[in-house]
């Protein structure tokens, strides 16, 4: 029962994150740059619960974005899944209790994720970019994400702990 409840809660949180991203964070950009709550969620869960859970949560989140808002299906799915897996893998080297670890990981993940995103969009579409503006946007987004991480860290840690408690299940994450 606990596992089912955990699964439902995770799905609910993923949907809530998408809704918050499109309805709230798009309305309050920082110097014209939007935060990416998805990275905060996926990286946070990856860090707390490992690569499998991180990868699945990232995959679901990315797929929703792809289907709903992207020109190409699969780009966000791929990128968010990688974010979940990589943060899950590197989490082994960090203490889960460290507040700084999550902040640093989200900051670095945002930079890598967005560079990869821009690179893929440039390769797959006729996407015109200027390196300087891309760097500025990515750095601002990384700072914005760090602020969000600090605000939401408590909840992400609680969610991670809840997932870890029901992790032994065969069918759940």
């Amino acid at each position, binding site marked *: 029962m606990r596992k089912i409840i955990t699964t439902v809660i995770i799905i609910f949180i993923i949907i809530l994150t998408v809704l918050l991203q*499109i309805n709230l964070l*798009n309305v309050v950009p920082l110097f014209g*740059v*939007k935060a990416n709550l998805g990275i905060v969620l996926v990286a946070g869960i990856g860090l707390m619960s490992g690569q499998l859970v991180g990868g699945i949560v990232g995959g679901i989140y990315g797929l929703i974005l792809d289907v709903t*808002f992207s*020109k190409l299906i699969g780009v966000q799915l791929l990128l968010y899944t990688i974010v979940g897996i990589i943060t899950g893998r590197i989490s082994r080297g960090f203490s889960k209790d460290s507040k700084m670890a999550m902040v640093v990981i989200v900051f670095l993940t945002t930079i890598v994720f967005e560079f990869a995103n821009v690179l893929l969009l440039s390769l797959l*579409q*006729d996407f*015109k*970019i200027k390196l300087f503006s891309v760097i500025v946007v990515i750095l601002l987004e990384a700072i914005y994400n760090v602020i969000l991480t600090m605000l939401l860290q408590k909840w992400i840690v609680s969610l991670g702990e809840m997932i870890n408690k029901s992790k032994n299940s065969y069918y759940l994450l």
Partner: protein
Amino acid sequence: MRNKFLKTLLIIIGVIVLFSIIGLTNGKNREVTVVEALFSDIITVPQRVYTHLKNWIIKDKDFFSDIEKLKEENKKLKQENVQLTDKMVDYELLVSENNVLKEHLKMESAYPDYEVVVAEVISGSNSNWEDVILINKGKNSGILPNMAVITTEGLVGYVESVSDDTAKIVSIIDAGNSVSGRVVRTRDAIVCMGSSLLRENGRLKATYIPLGVELVEGDKIETSGMGGIYPKGIAIGEVTSFTVKKNPSENEAIIDTFVDFNRLETVAVIIGEVKI
């Protein structure tokens, strides 16, 4: 004989005392004696208690009946309140619907040559790179990919993909999008491109400006009709700056779009031309 005399004497004394008492107590401003007060208190204290209780009960009886009345009134008021709230909601819905219909009418009359489907924007872009908008009409309303999307102000973009009841619109400010435009004043064809640097301000970069053409601030740009997606003559924006480069073929201009992409609520998808 002696007993009879004593009895008669006692009766007489009694009568006299009584009459004396009557006489003594028959005065308006007479003060109450200690004895009277004592007897009076014996009765009045419990009487006061009784009266107090009785009044309390009677008052309480009214109180209970008042509660019933109040409850009833409250119930009625609550019902009225619910009805009024419903009416308010209906009113607000009507106002909102009215505004939407006005917007639709405006939209349809703005481009009489085209058959349009008016739709509401469900959500704006959620990324720092792409500018994709989601609308609440799709295949079921006759919308197909590559149809042009407009507002009363001007060009919004094109339909990228459709589901039964939604459609994804790629806006003209998307960094991967470009529109073939025409300068209204000079009739020269240019290319208006989305840019990651300019999209937040709702601006486009004009490139491939023909040699010798110098754009000036305020020059209006409209669609040229070339490219197969956007019909001819739809307003795009106006020039805000023109930069001359060392190589004249690289001259570029910045175009401020007429559509405010941050406040996009209603759009129209051109699904065909009106046949006369």
